[in-house]
């Protein structure tokens, strides 16, 4: 189990290699990475703000809950903050399990809870100015299926 909140970018391949290094008990490794998407061609910058201290604790709690629900060998959550450009990596989650289904479900669970329960906020700056990204009702609704 590991949680990191950092300004700098990460290498997805290196993170996944490190997670399974020296282990022979992992049968399935599912990862997800979120990227800065530019829908309109107008996005200049995405600023990620977070609540230092609470963020790490909230992510660790979400991760611990995943380990209670599924048979997992290891998990990793890396989330960036600060100014990001279109195409850049925002964050990643990885879930390793002896079995595929648990790894997929746990990664999906981590994402759903992270989106609505970890204190991060996105602000988009485009040619028309800056605007905070609104949370979607579907994000909150997604928690109910777990």
């Amino acid at each position, binding site marked *: 189990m590991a949680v990191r909140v950092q300004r700098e970018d990460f290498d997805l391949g290196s993170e996944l290699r490190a997670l399974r290094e020296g282990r022979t008990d992992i049968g399935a490794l599912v990862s997800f990475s979120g990227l800065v998407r530019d829908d309109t061609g107008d996005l200049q910058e995405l600023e990620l703000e977070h609540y230092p201290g609470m963020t790490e604790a909230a992510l660790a709690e979400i991760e611990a809950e995943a380990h209670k629900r599924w048979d997992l060998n290891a998990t990793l959550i890396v989330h960036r903050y600060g100014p990001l450009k279109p195409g850049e990596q925002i964050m990643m989650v990885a879930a390793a399990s002896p079995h595929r289904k648990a790894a997929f479900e746990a990664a999906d669970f981590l*994402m759903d809870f*992270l989106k609505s329960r970890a204190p991060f906020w996105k602000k988009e700056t485009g040619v028309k100015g800056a605007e905070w990204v609104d*949370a979607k009702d579907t994000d909150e609704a997604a928690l109910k299926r777990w």
Partner: protein
Amino acid sequence: MDVVYFAWVRERIGLPRETVETTASTVGELVAELRAREDRYDLAFSDLTVVRVAVDQVLADFDAPLKDVRELAFFPPMTGG
């Protein structure tokens, strides 16, 4: 207690953090006090359905008690990931 603000709540109030002396017994009572204080607070808290609260860095409700609380945080619904 320390009160901290994030994202557009911080921008509307114009402060990231302040120390507040209050006799309010719940988060909701403190919000009512702040709203009565100045327009910028009234604006920031005008729609409580889009404001979330954390008590000592744990998500809570507006009826949460303030006794022995060290840090209270207000922010919009989260948009990470």
